[in-house]
């Protein structure tokens, strides 16, 4: 996973997002999420750059024409 610096949301922003979905996590929960996002968000950014813009999303299982 990538390691470049990516801005992370604050605990309060995460809490608001969780509450908007009806979920009420603790501070400890959200700190765990922040740690995870610190790894995943740079990797997501990297993947966005690597994946051609003309590639559509795969479905639940890959269609036969792309079968390996």
């Amino acid at each position: 996973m990538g390691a470049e610096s990516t801005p992370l949301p604050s605990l309060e922003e995460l809490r608001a997002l969780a509450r908007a979905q009806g979920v009420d996590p603790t501070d400890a929960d959200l700190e765990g999420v922040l740690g995870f996002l610190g790894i995943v968000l740079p990797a997501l950014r990297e993947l966005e750059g690597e994946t051609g813009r003309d590639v559509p999303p795969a479905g639940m299982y890959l269609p036969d024409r792309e079968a390996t």
Partner: protein
Amino acid sequence: MTLNSLARAIRRGELSPREAVQDALERIERDDPAYNSFITVRAEEALAEAEALPEPAGALHGVPLGVKDVIDVAGTRTTAASKVLADNTAAADATVVARLRKAGAVIVGKLNTHEFAWGASTTSQAFGPAHNPWDIERICGGSSGGSGAAVAARLVPGALGTDTAGSVRIPAALCGVTGIRPTTGRVPNRGVIPVSWTYDTVGPLARTAEDCALLLDVIGGPDPHDASTTPAAGDPCLEGIGRGVAGLRIGVVAHLFHDVPIDPRVAAVVEAAIGELGRLGARVERVDASFLRRAEVVQQLVMLPEAAEAHLPWLRTRLADYGADVRARLLAGLLLPASAPITGQRARRALALEARPLFERFDLLASPEMPIVAPRIGEDPVEVAGQSLPYRLSLIPFNSPWSCLGVPTVSVPCGFVDGLPVGLALTGRRLAESTVLSAAHAYQQVTDWHERRPPDPT
């Protein structure tokens, strides 16, 4: 006795279904306190069902089996090893259970799992850890850890697990049994608690590839009423199990031996197993497939939000009842950017396109199933080749590529390190389970790793 041998013995009248089921129940009662592989044992129901089996006998007539406790069995609780579902009773059989029953199998119980099938340790806070029969101080892997332990300990001759990111293959490797993740969509998921719609599949664990073939033939195949199944059935597996590996092209996935952390002793055991396939006539060649490392993040980007969505009602009302590790992953999935799963699915398609030439060039890919042998219960991080790593991160490079591609992959017992089992992963093209399992069977005809027995628990 293997599953196929037991099924033949019952068909020949050498023992009755009731005797076979009674024997399994006695083993469970005697030995499972040491393993905690079962969450629920259906003793009375199983004996009654064994006595009431209809004729003519199906392929699994009277064979006692266990199923992971995320798979519904009508009238029996499905707990997912979680406090959240501790009192949840299934109203109907999952499709795979209905298919097993139609073939004459008797479900003797529900097997321990990592909470909600999401983790690789099977150390449920609500139901206790499952213990590895080779060393009960160690984990049996997961999430289908109870399935791996119960088969390794000879409590049942076969079991069903589920696999999203390695959950059949990992316990198979760590417990020294055979387990196959089928092509995504080959086996119906209806009646199975989901982790991630994109990656989930049911898969069998048994002592031999031949046994897995029989189970997969029974549970696989399209279900027009289930959108999780592919329309194509795939070749039957048991019928061609003896065709060997002569002439097959096997690509050895080089980066999984050298470029990611792996215990060199595990790597050496797997290399030796691949050498055996070469001696059997396969054409073995190393291949650079390091682009597959992208699967590690691709899988997370899709799996986390899908799991969060599946759990949303319980996240709203039962958040505190989850174990800390699963709760953290679910919340991460809930709070990822909306673009994450879409980027993940686009990258997954790109990965499949890039992998296509690999599967055109090779009939099978060979790699280690795990970088280490079973860690001690509670040992996390683990040490891998001198590096300290979170246990879960250590195994992702070995498992996520095949989940992302949706291709069949089997873990075959291939040796021991420090007295603990090691698994060889053989991966094939979509719906080519018959090739994967026949290669595993060929290997098991010239080796006896799958016949080794764990020590007596007493």
